[in-house]
């Protein structure tokens, strides 16, 4: 008898929590990156102050959600890679994911340290003051802003690589790599279409 809900043998999606955290962080990272790139060269204005604060609040939120996500990832085995994947691709994906996780922490921490060094501490949502990571130091701030920016652009490049790989798997390899990370509804539609084509 044919199963209707798991048409592909061995197919297993990520957990709902992993999927939720993935897409929530994807939105936050994309938003923070764009705001960060836009605000960096703005002249001092109310807009600049507002955007800097929103960016800092988002960064701390990303840091916390990433810690939650890492804890989840370490305690929940991700679904196995499809058998069709090449060993080389599995290694590339593994190291891309590892580097992404490192940057999920490194980028916000560098930004937080930059805020501390430059004399504008982080007050999360304007309510919760966070401790300074480093002492006030103009020279250090100048270095940290470069470190934060360079790491953010590196993260941006890796996200592009990561998304391009997902699209390649979906459109060209026509496997279920992306489906594993899609919300249940979208995943069900993909599986139903494949089932219909069989």
């Amino acid at each position: 008898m044919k199963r209707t809900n798991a048409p592909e043998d061995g197919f297993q999606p990520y957990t709902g929590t992993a999927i939720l955290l993935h897409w929530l962080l994807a939105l936050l990272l994309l938003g923070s990156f764009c705001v960060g790139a836009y605000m960096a060269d703005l002249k001092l204005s109310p807009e600049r102050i507002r955007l800097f604060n929103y960016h800092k609040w988002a960064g701390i939120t990303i840091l916390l959600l990433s810690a939650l996500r890492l804890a989840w990832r370490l305690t929940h085995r991700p679904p196995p890679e499809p058998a069709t994947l090449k060993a080389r691709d599995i290694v590339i994906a593994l190291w891309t994911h590892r580097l992404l996780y490192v940057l999920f922490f490194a980028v916000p921490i560098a930004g937080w340290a930059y805020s501390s060094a430059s004399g504008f501490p982080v007050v999360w949502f304007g309510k919760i003051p966070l401790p300074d990571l480093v002492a006030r130091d103009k020279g250090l701030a100048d270095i940290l802003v470069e470190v934060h920016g360079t790491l953010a652009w590196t993260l941006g490049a890796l996200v592009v690589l990561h998304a391009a790989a997902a699209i390649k798997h979906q459109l060209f390899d026509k496997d279920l790599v992306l489906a594993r990370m899609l919300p249940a509804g979208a995943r069900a539609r993909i599986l139903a279409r494949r089932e219909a084509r069989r």
Partner: protein
Amino acid sequence: MSRFAAKVAAACSLLAAGLVLGGPALAAQLVPAESRIGFVSRQMGVPVEGSFRRFDADIDFDPAKPGKGHFAIRVDTSSVDLPTRDAIEEVAKPGWFDAARFPRATFESTAVRAAGTDRYEVDGTLTVRGQARPVVVPVQLTRSPGRAVAEGEFTVRRLAFSIGAGEWADTSLVADEVLVRFRLVLSGRPF
């Protein structure tokens, strides 16, 4: 010199010292290099620390007669220090301190009251951007021979002095309340 002459000389010097000590309150000298007048302003909840790099003071104060004390402080409004160059340039503009039109902000005491051991409350007038407002400044004095440190903090409402006008008037962006913190090192008698 006779013993009598010596006694006269001693008596005269004692008298002179007594006149000086018992006389009107004496001016204390500000030690600018060790003194600080700073402030903390809040931007969307973020405390941003600033200070004035140039200021001077005329202070007549005798801890034995606080009621006769007088404090006059002058701050150079073009000498603001803030964490970034942008911010330093911004606050000198007409919407803020308007340093070109109002180069000085002043505090002048009108009454001094003792409020505990080496604690005083100083009533005075704070004038910024030409606008005078009454303030009460608590002062804690720490004395050592020939030297005193006067410290304290008080809150002012920036909008009462029209500091930060137009697009900056929004207090959800820059809070109305600004904490002023001072540490004035004074030298000379009668400390």
